[in-house]
């Protein structure tokens, strides 16, 4: 097990180094923050002075060497736009994103898992098809469109909830529903297929032969076993939510790390972009590693493979 964890950690470090290198060079291909900070009639002298002030005047490989050197000491640079250490900016916003994620996951599981069970129990039937439609809609609806639609209906027309921004509990409803809708579909699909697998297994047949009630067979024996892949998916979804809340946070003016990423891209804030992507990668690697370790712990075949 220790060897397995060590191997995964080494892989994670290599992956991080690759991510950092790619984001450093690709980010710079998208343009220059100086172009966005100066007016259109700025002189070459103004441009050169600002480029120097921002530390963007050296050769790119020299800048990369400085970046790597600083990163090894935990310094991912200072945001060009916000003039704040990029790591600090990330951790300032992270709690806002983390405040949404548990509720979205909860919504996804609370609706997706029962729907998946119902769909599996009615395989090929009307309920299965209806649940399938929900799944397709949940996956196919762009969160941007869904968010705007929810705002229009529930904020503008009905006036039930605020249209966006952080605030009291009511402010969480629409962003959570927007994020959670995708998860409902995901959880429903994986629960359905896992349930179908489990329901065909020998131990379920044995449970029935033993005369256990159908509800005990389904909800206790089948569902408990079907939840193993669901829990694995949970880790993937948390990772997706951390990286993928950009659109939802933008639509709902939610000051989380999704929007911080968006701002870093829009303003060509290289240090911030590098820091955000590297830190997100660390988070996701950590989550995936945790899930893999748990999985390996539960299923020895994985760690022995």
């Amino acid at each position, binding site marked *: 097990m220790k060897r397995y964890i060590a191997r995964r950690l080494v892989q994670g470090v290599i992956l991080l180094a690759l991510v950092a290198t790619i984001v450093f060079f690709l980010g710079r291909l998208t343009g220059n923050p100086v*172009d966005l900070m100066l007016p*259109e009639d*700025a002189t070459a002298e103004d441009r050169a002075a600002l480029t120097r002030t921002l530390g963007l005047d050296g050769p790119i490989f020299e800048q990369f060497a400085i970046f790597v050197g600083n990163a090894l000491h935990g310094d991912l640079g200072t945001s060009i736009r916000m003039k704040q250490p990029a790591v600090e900016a990330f951790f300032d916003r992270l709690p806002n994103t983390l405040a949404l994620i548990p509720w979205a996951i909860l919504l996804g599981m609370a609706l997706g898992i029962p729907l998946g069970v119902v769909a599996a129990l009615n395989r090929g039937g009307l309920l299965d098809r209806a649940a399938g439609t929900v799944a397709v809609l949940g996956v196919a609806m762009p969160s941007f469109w869904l968010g705007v639609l929810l705002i229009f209906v529930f*904020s503008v027309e009905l006036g039930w909830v605020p*249209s966006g921004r952080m605030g009291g509990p009511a402010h969480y409803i629409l962003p959570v529903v927007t994020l959670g809708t995708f998860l409902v579909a995901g959880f429903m699909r994986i629960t359905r297929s896992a349930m179908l697998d489990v329901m065909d297994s020998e131990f379920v047949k044995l449970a029935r032969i033993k005369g256990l009630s159908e509800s005990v067979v389904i909800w206790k024996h089948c569902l408990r076993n079907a939840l193993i892949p669901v829990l694995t998916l949970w880790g993937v979804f948390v990772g997706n939510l951390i990286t993928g809340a950009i659109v939802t946070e*933008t639509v*709902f*003016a939610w000051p989380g790390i999704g929007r911080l990423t968006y701002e870093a891209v829009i303003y060509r804030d290289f240090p911030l972009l590098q820091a955000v992507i590297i830190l997100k990668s660390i988070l996701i690697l950590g989550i995936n590693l945790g899930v893999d370790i748990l999985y390996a712990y539960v299923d020895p075949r994985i760690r022995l493979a």
Partner: protein
Amino acid sequence: MLRQSARAATLAAALVAFAVAPSGAQEQKGTLVFAVESLGAQTLDPILEGRPGNAVYQAAMYDSLVGFDLKKGGVGPGVAERWELSSDGLSWIFHLRPGQTFHNGDKLTAEDVKFSLERQMGPGSLASAAASMRRTIKSIEVVDELTVRVNTSSPQLGLPAALSRAVAPEGAIMPKAYIEKVGEEEFRKKPIGSGPWKFVRNVPGDRIEFTAVGTPHWRGRPSFKDLHLLLVPEESTRVAMVRTGEAAIASIGPETMLSASRGGLEVLSVPGTMQAIFQFWGVWRPEVKDQPIAKPRVRQALSLAIDRKQVIDHVMNGKAALPYPFATFGYTDYFSADRWEKWAAEAYRYDPVLAKKILAEEGYPNGFELKFANTALPGTQFMVDIGTAIADMWTKVGIKVTLKHYEWGSFAPMERGDQAGLVGWASMYRTAGRPDAPWRYDGAFSPESTQRLLGDKDNCQAACQEFVKTYRALLAELDRGKRTALTDHMVEVAADSWTVVPILEGMGYYAVNKKKVGQFEPIPGRHELGDVFERIPRPDQQPWKK
């Protein structure tokens, strides 16, 4: 000696301020909530913010050395109520209005002005004009408590405009004694200015909150007690917030005007905030000399092929205007606006028949192939639609347009260096609404400039030479009348070259909830509302006219 007497403008501004000041202005209550797409760097230190951010939120709490002409737009009195040029043209003397104070009660004096300008020019400044200021400003002297002398290395007739918020953020006045006492870091956490709004709270990525000063202020005493500026990047969410009353005002683009209006909101437009233009790159270069666009008449024909009214009606929802010549507006300094308005109405007309005739006369009866780079500068995404529309109009007179769309970040680097990706191309471009045309002309046409649209130092032909001669004379001219004549000539040289052609004069747009704020007037040419908040009445004070 050229005397810039701003007394009349001060009086006019005071009258306008009085006229728009709501009745019952003594009472301050409620919160004015403004939803905006960007809060820039979201820092309250003026040396760390660019022009748009300064204009949106820093303007609320900082006054500028030179301010606005509230009625017609452009330069007007600010912290300095008047200013004058020395007889040798090498010094500007600014006379500050008496009785101004910072939010901590300290008096605003000439020392603060000197300190602020020097801080903007300092090594830690990200001000876009810091380098230019370091080059042009030789020294700054405090003559007395209310008088500052700025000595320049050469005549700088545009200096007051450059220190006006109508143009740039570098004129923001900061509190010398406070910053020296608490240090820069503390100042950035607890900033104070002298504007009509005091800083309360800055929540990065979310909002900035201010509260109104309780005492009279020369810019106007706010009617609202508090001012909240909310960062809401998504336009449909901003409009929804105004509809639900969560915000009173939101910035919008022209494409949203119709839906906002149908949703029962008032749509406010600010005239003269920008010009959408198209321009030709490197037409003076030897490698382009055989191309059709090397001929000025062909470029003129492309202008005649554009139905500007159609673009205004359909892309801008009718909320735009026919333009003046390049980078000029009704409020441009030293400029014969009436004359040029008439000229532009004729020159920028839609005449496809004449366009085709010119093309035939120039040897292109069947049109030619034109490469056209479509792009939008930050904050003006609608320019892409304008570019697409004019490309279509060119197609109708036989031009085979190769249209390529560029995100601004990838377009901007192509302007520099040898411009290899742009030479021989036409492209969309923009110029912001500013009263000082020469500065913008220098950036577009000077042989040393980045764009150098008429020629470079090694290849400066007739139009380029005429521009250089006129521009240099303009910089040294102290007589107001002669300066106007030179500006007009500079405009003429550029207009006749047809290298930069205005398409329309754009506006700034806002969706307004009439139940949340009363009727107010923006400042012409000033897209942002940072200098307007204090003059926005509550709805009970100044209901909107039906």
